[in-house]
């Protein structure tokens, strides 16, 4: 029986994130909710464009309920 394993996929996502300029990655998140949302979405190039903002919103809402 096979078991859940997304390690390769997630490692690939993280490699993709690290291709962004280091000054963008090291920047502290913008406190403005719309700017912050857009800036974060722009980093999620491992996702199709139409999914990026939703991924940020979904993540924020999930982590508030953790």
């Amino acid at each position, binding site marked *: 029986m096979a078991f859940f394993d997304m390690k390769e996929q997630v490692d690939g*996502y993280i490699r993709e994130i690290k291709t962004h300029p280091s000054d963008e990655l090291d920047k*502290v998140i913008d406190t403005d909710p719309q700017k912050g949302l857009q800036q*974060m979405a722009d980093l*999620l190039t491992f996702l199709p464009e139409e999914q990026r903002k939703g991924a940020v*919103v979904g*993540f924020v809402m999930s982590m*508030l309920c953790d």
Partner: protein
Amino acid sequence: MEKNERFDERLKVLHDTIQHKHTSRIAHFSNFFTWKILDSDLKPKLSEALSDYGMLDRIQCEFQERYDFDVHYDPLGRNLLKPAALLGGNHHLVDDEQESINFFDHTLLQDDEYPAYKTDRWGTSWKMFLRKYPDLKQGLMAEAIAVNTENNAYLPYIKAKLAKEYGCPTCYNCLAQVPHERFHKYYRGIKAASLDLRRRKSELIDAYDAIMEDEVMPGVHKALATDTSECMVDLMVPLLAHTMMNMKQWETFYWPYLKQILDAALAANKTVMIYLENSLIRFKEYFQDYPKGFLVLVPELDDVAELREAVPNACIVGGITAQLLGRGTPEECVDRAKKVIDQMGDGFMLGQNKMMSFRNDCKRENLLAVCEYVQNFRW
């Protein structure tokens, strides 16, 4: 969905039980959470298992193969510890020595921010997020989102696997909560939210009305339009915060909103599971007028026979306590199962009375004895 040959029979027993139809056997409901990790022959540390979805998958399969439940309330899918650990802030403390996970009461929404939350949900949520994870760098958050894709993928994966390999239907696909629940547990914390009920009544009602109108009820209607015919229930509603309310507070801040959700589900001819912390009996009148075949109650403190008398129209899940499973003998546990099955009759599923989380909540030999009994029981 691919299904094991036992799926249809399990689903029929679950559905017929909810409808109070007589079934040839008793359904067995798993209310087991992290106890599964502690019971596993893989013997992982709690922290090790919780950060490895592959291991959680193995543990869930091992648990099902050993105990053969009909349905699982939690398939070890509720777990945001990995992305939370990456972000550096964590309101959970996983203690491998004590084998415990502690959750710390905390306040993210400030005292005067209910009006802002009402009108600008995203903006206020963003502020709360940055309070929870201050000085967070963009790259780290992006990594956490990447890591969280595992969590997003795991739950549908394990539900499909339980159906395909073991014939276990999904307990529920859709969840709804009244607005107060999010403030009680996550945004204001138990202490501040309880004080708010007295000090900020109109702000709360204002915000809760808006949340229901533009968020909860549209979500409920969307959920009710989903095909959930292969789930045990169509909608799950957890009742947690009601434990801190007196009757007047319940009537103001909880029941009006819960009633909207329940009435919408009833109008759509769907079933609702109410998963309870603490007790429901003091609120029994509110649930007595719903028809048989609609409500499923999973109680914690309430004795199932007393709850049956209080809300006779509801299907009840439970009957075996953690105290008995953890400290009794196999014979005592089986005697209890026999007694409660006989006592409750139709409209009853055998289950445990709490989220089974700690080693002392259950002994393997006791659970095996109960499982053997219920799996061989026939009317």
